[in-house]
Structures are given as C-alpha cells and as structure tokens.
C-alpha cells in the first residue's frame, strides 16, 4: 500500500468518526433543549452510560444474567440459524440445480415460500419449539436457507459451459464434476451473499427474542421497551451495533480467504 493511499485511509476513518460524533452531539443537544423528547428518543449521554454500566458489570444484572450472557445467547442462535441455513441451502440448491425435472416440480413451492414474510412464522416456532433458543434458530434458518438456496442454485445452473465441457473432456465423472466445478462455482455465489445471510441470521435471532424469550439481546431490548426505558432500548441497540461490526470483520476475513482467486 502506497503512502498517499494510507493517508487517504486515515482521512476516511477520521471523517467516519467525526460524523458519528457530530450525530451524537446534535442528538444530545436536541434532547437537552427538548427539541427531541428524551422520553422517546433518550439521549446519548444516558444510553451510552447505560451500555457502559452493563458492559463493565459482569455480575447478574438483567433477568439474572450479565449482558455478556445475553449477547452469547444471541450469537449462538445466530450461528445456529446461519449454519443450518447454509448447510441445507447448499444441499437443496445443489440437488435442484443438477436436476431440471425436480427444480420444475418444486419451483412453485419455492416461489411461494420465498415470497412469504417468514417473520410471521416466529409465533408458530415458539409454539412448536418453545421460547428457548431453538425457536430463534429455526427462524434464522428459514431466512438464511432461501438466500443460500437461490445462490447455490444459480451457481450450479450458471456455471460456464466451457468450463464444464473442459472438465468432462479432462476426464471428470459426475462426482468429480460436482466437486471440482459445480461446488466451487456455487460457492462464489453463496459467498457473494454471505453478508446478507449472516445479517438475516441475526435478524432471526433478535426478532425471535423480541417476540418471546427469557434471554438474549432482543429480550433485553423488549424488556426495556416494556418499562418505557428508552435509554435501555438504545443501549441494547448500541451493543448490537458493536456485535454486528465484529461479525462483519469476521465475514470479511472469511470472504477474502475463500475467494482469493478472484
């Protein structure tokens, strides 16, 4: 990386921080002079202080758990929904992508299921699976599955004809073709949607917790809201933002490793 580029980077980061500070300061001022009602909008000094208290107390605070325990619950649910969604999405996309016949048979079902706003399934999952982690994993799964499925399907379908022919002539049988050509092609599509899928897994976990749960970050936010504690809501959201940034860092690293060849 050349020196001017580095300087550029520093400038960008400085501006990004500056913009955040400006927003927070405007918000704070607006709340103090009552342009914004702190009852609804809280104010940065309050909710940042709350988040700080939560983060510095590792003892039980909220519902008998520390904020770290809640965060962990949410992250485990996210990972569960994401992992299952990817596994089944890849498998289904791969199988249907290989078979013209079955992809036609399943086409209307997939279209309808995909069009359905799957968040409405949250209460049903709670009924079937209970209010613990499993119902949140299930919700995240239904969100992630379709994204991964469609991308794997396209990856298998739209692999370059010449590459397939080349591999066949080089001696690939069906299994080898799947391993050396179709799977890598599907992977590139799946990876392009990695950010979206991880995001949706998190949405599944948070929304599920928000609707019915006894722990997790979504539950913390919904509790605060139930107590008209807007500082608690925003503090929860601040911590959620931090978690998202960390997750994104991991996703970026994974992406860079897996599509080195691009």
């Amino acid at each position, binding site marked *: 990386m050349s020196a001017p580029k580095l300087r550029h980077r520093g400038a960008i980061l400085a501006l990004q921080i500056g913009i955040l500070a400006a927003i927070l300061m405007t918000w704070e001022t607006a709340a103090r002079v009552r342009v914004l009602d702190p009852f609804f909008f809280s104010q940065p000094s309050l909710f940042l202080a709350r988040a700080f208290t939560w983060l510095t107390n590792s003892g039980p605070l909220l519902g008998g758990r520390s904020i770290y325990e809640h965060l962990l619950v949410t992250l485990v649910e996210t990972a569960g929904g994401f992992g299952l969604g990817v596994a089944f999405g890849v498998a289904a996309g791969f199988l249907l992508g290989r078979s013209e016949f079955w992809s036609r048979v399943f086409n209307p079902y997939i279209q309808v299921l995909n069009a359905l706003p799957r968040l409405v399934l949250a209460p049903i999952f709670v009924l079937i699976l209970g209010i613990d982690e499993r119902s949140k994993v299930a919700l995240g799964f239904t969100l992630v599955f379709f994204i991964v499925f469609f991308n794997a399907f396209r990856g298998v379908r739209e692999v*370059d004809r*010449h*590459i397939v*022919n*080349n*591999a*066949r*002539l*080089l*001696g*690939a*049988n069906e299994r*080898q073709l799947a391993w*050396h*050509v179709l799977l*890598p*092609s599907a*992977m*590139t599509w799946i990876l392009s949607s990695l950010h979206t899928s991880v995001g949706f897994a998190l949405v599944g976990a948070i929304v599920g917790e928000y609707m019915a749960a006894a722990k997790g970050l979504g539950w913390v936010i919904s509790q605060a809201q139930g107590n008209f504690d807007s500082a608690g809501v925003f503090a929860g959201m601040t911590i959620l933002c931090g978690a998202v940034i960390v997750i994104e860092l991991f996703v970026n690293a994974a992406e860079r490793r897996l599509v*080195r*060849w*691009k």
Partner: protein
Amino acid sequence: MAHASIVLENVTVDFGGYHALQNLSFGVPEGQFAAIVGPTGCGKTSVLNMVAGLAKAASGQVRCGGRLVDSVQCSAAYMFQQDALLPWKTVLENVLLGPLLRGAARRDAETLARHWIARVGLKGLEARYPAQLSGGQRKRVAMAQALICGLPVLLLDEPFSALDAQTRVLMEEELLTLWQEQGATVLFVTHDLEEAISLADRVLIFSAGPGSRLKADYRVDLPRPRNVVEARFIPGFMDLYRRIWADLKEEVLASHERSKASA
C-alpha cells in the same frame, strides 16, 4: 497409439433451422496433423465439438478410431477457443487436473504438471490464479492442461491466436516436437494460413456458411521434421500458400458478402 483416426460422414449441423454445416465428409488418418481453415462462422468449432462428443450431428456420423462418437470422448484432448480454465484453481491445479481426474496419484500428477508448466514457459507462476495471468499466459496454461494427458487425439481451436509472434513460434515448435514424440492425430483450427501450412500435413478449407462443406483439401509435402520458421522459406511454401489463399479468399469474400447482405 492405435485407433485414433477421425472420420466425418455426411455430417450436417443444425442450430434451430440454421444449417451451419451440410453433408460434410472428410477423414483424417491416425497420426496425421490436419489444419482446418475457413471464414469465420463456417463451423470449424462445431466440427471439433462433434469429434469431442460435446455436440451431436443432426445427421451423418462422426467416428473416432472406428467407434461412433456418441458421448464425451475420453481419448481426445481439446483446447477450447474460449477460456475454459477453472478460475478457482491455480495454474498448477489446473494443469494437474487431467491426470488427477484420470486416477493418477496427486504427487505424480503434480510432478508431471510442474514439468509441463516449465515446458510452456510458465515456471514460477504455478501458484497464480487464471485471473492473475495475461491472455497469452492463460492460453499456455490451457495448452499444458490439454497436452499433459498425452491422448491420441488433439483438438486445438485457434490455440495460438492470443499469443505474441515470438511466443507463438515457441509454442508452435513445442507442439510439433510433442506431436512428433507422441504421434497424435491432430485437428488444428486456425485463421492463419502460414501457421496452417508450416505445421500441418494437410490443410482443409471450409467454404462459407450456411451449409458449409469441404471446399478444398491440400497436402503439404514439406519435409519433416520441420522448423516452423524455416519452413516458410522452403521453395514449395509460397507456391502452396498462393494456391490455398486463392481458394480461401473466395470463401472469405463470400462470407463477408453474406453477412453484409443479412445485416
């Protein structure tokens, strides 16, 4: 290296009503190096595809080594006109793919692949991905990938058209050396008449499409082993070139007129 003759009998190729080739017949005996020349769009690639078993003739037969070609050929190496390297594999992985898929041990395949990469002049680039190579370098990887298996039939579709003149001569020499070692039957498509004459035993001229057929069939009686550059200075070369060019020019012009008329 038996059973590698190529025979096309009354082959017609149909693309939804458009007959690219009509009643095309020719045969290439085992071990012969045949160049195919013809105006663009006349069906040269289609012929290679049929011999490789990737495309089917609407009517007529394609035989390879006496056997009817009805599915993907395992005795033919094919260097495609388009880029067909696996973009997610490195140069090394691309080149060792053929032996690996055909059951060689990974270590042996790798040793062989390194040898071939050096042979096409890409030593040191083993760990690059195709996206990190120039067009000419990619062509050379494709060449190593196709030739490494030492198959009895070689199908080469404008293999050297993306190379600079110097590299091109090197690769042509390499191909001739290899062919002399292995004695494969070669179908070599090119637009470059000089290249066709200096490499091949025989030059087949296709007529302009639609309904392209074999317009002319020239034997090249230049002595072997040949040096690609020096062959061009052998007395018979220019004479042959002029005669073939006269035939080819007619077809190129006809093709051009037709495409203008339909535009």
